[in-house]
């Protein structure tokens, strides 16, 4: 009796959208599905190659990473720390696998220092340990990152507090069209700058600083549970006694560039 089985294996999706998956986890069987970022094909199976959330787009399976250091991308706005000073540039730590460079030609006027600093006087402009709100202008093939403080709102940050957050939670901390950041600012009157590299700068009145920090930590911990914005609103209202509105500014919120001055 000849086996006239259909040679094409039945394709089967083993996960659903927003499932947490771990490396080596089998996501789908069969050739109907297509592996995208964070997944790979092993014979007829598709497996995950990092910890993250499943994102399905039709037959394409992608992973949104949940962990790992910041991956520099051009045009991202980040908070960098000066670690070294050269003749013409500053070397910066950006909470990534690599450092970044700020050329003296890329210094902005935002800090009141003028656009064309003299050579050799670099430490008078930004010194070691300073935190800079800057923009990534170039990521080269060898992972060399160039940044600039020449742009609206970009500047040295001082008189505030720096906290580190999970870089993958930054979008939730900012919220849709800045709604989350706005809630925190409304409640605490804090100035806030959120770097896409997982560094946040806060300038608050002492009695509100802890509330803002706890709100941010709460967002980090509960980002996966639906209804987050309302929960944060309730939390902030309870802590501050203020009545808050969830506003989504429709202006082009390039994250925090608008929100902080």
């Amino acid at each position: 009796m000849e086996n006239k089985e259909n040679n094409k294996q039945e394709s089967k999706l083993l996960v659903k959208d927003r499932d947490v998956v771990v490396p080596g986890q089998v996501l789908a069987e069969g050739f109907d599905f297509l592996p995208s970022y964070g997944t790979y094909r092993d014979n007829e199976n598709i497996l995950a190659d990092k910890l993250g959330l499943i994102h399905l787009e039709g037959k394409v399976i992608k992973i949104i990473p949940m962990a790992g250091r910041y991956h520099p991308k051009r045009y991202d706005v980040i908070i960098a720390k000066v670690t070294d000073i050269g003749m013409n540039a500053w070397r910066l730590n950006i909470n990534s696998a690599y450092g970044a460079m700020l050329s003296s030609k890329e210094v902005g006027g935002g800090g009141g220092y003028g656009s064309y600093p003299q050579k050799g006087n670099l430490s008078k402009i930004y010194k070691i340990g300073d935190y800079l709100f800057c923009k990534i202008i170039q990521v080269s093939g060898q992972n060399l990152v160039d940044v600039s403080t020449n742009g609206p709102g970009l500047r040295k940050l001082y008189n505030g507090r720096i906290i580190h957050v999970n870089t993958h939670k930054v979008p939730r901390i900012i919220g849709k069209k800045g709604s989350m950041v706005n809630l925190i600012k409304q409640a605490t009157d804090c100035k806030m700058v959120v770097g896409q590299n997982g560094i946040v700068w806060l300038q608050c009145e002492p009695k509100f600083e802890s509330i803002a920090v706890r709100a941010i930590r709460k967002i980090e911990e509960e980002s996966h549970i639906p209804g987050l914005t309302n929960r944060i609103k309730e939390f902030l209202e309870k802590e501050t006694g203020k009545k808050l509105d969830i506003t989504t500014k429709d202006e082009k919120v390039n994250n925090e560039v608008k929100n902080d001055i």
Partner: protein
Amino acid sequence: MDKEAQENIIKLLSEGLRQDDRKFDQFRDIEIELGVVEMAEGSARVKCGGTEVIAGIKMKLDKPYPDSADRGMLMVNAELTPLSNPRFESGPPSIESIEVARVIDKGLREGPAMDVKKLCIEVGEKVWSINVDVCPINEDGNLIDIGGIAAIAALNNARFPAVDKDGKVNYKKKTDQKLPIDDEPLPVTIIKIGEHLIVDPTENEVAVLDARLTFIFRKDGKLCAVQKGGEGSLSVEDIKKMSDMAEQTVNQNRKILEKVLK
């Protein structure tokens, strides 16, 4: 020192606030668990906020030092490795790990935590040698205090291993004989930031301190060790205040420890 970080913390302190909402004289919650390393002669794990430390006791028979031929030996070591905090480097003991170990050691030795004469088996020939190793798993400040609690808890948890007839230690058999513990010297560290005095500092607070003062108290309330750290100075007034704060705190911590040791 990160001057800005210090300014930010001082700004909070000036309003009576700390980053984690604690009061200036408030310790983080302490959890003590005994015997977590069953194979060692004694052990304890202490968690205090973001700091978590395991202390282990190992014993061996050895020749005593010539100038203390009738006394056993007690040695404290602290292993500060990148496991618990990336600011620790692997390699030879850092000055920080040496200070943590020596301050805890001083408290145990001066207390004295135990009568080391009772560790003598044969004068000049054979004594028990006790090693206390303090290893952080998570580190967020205040290792001396938390390591000190772990060391005492571990010593209390310890039991002598059996010694077989040819005088060799049999590590696989524990007797139920405890160490000759007479006291529980406990350290409390107060730090000064600007003009403010706070207890049980976190890593962020330690990073911006001007000076710190560790007091080690015996059960009867007497001091058995004091150590100043940090590059800043202390006024006599400061020292008086710090000693009072430490005394209040150590009594609370002692109650927590005693509950676990029962």
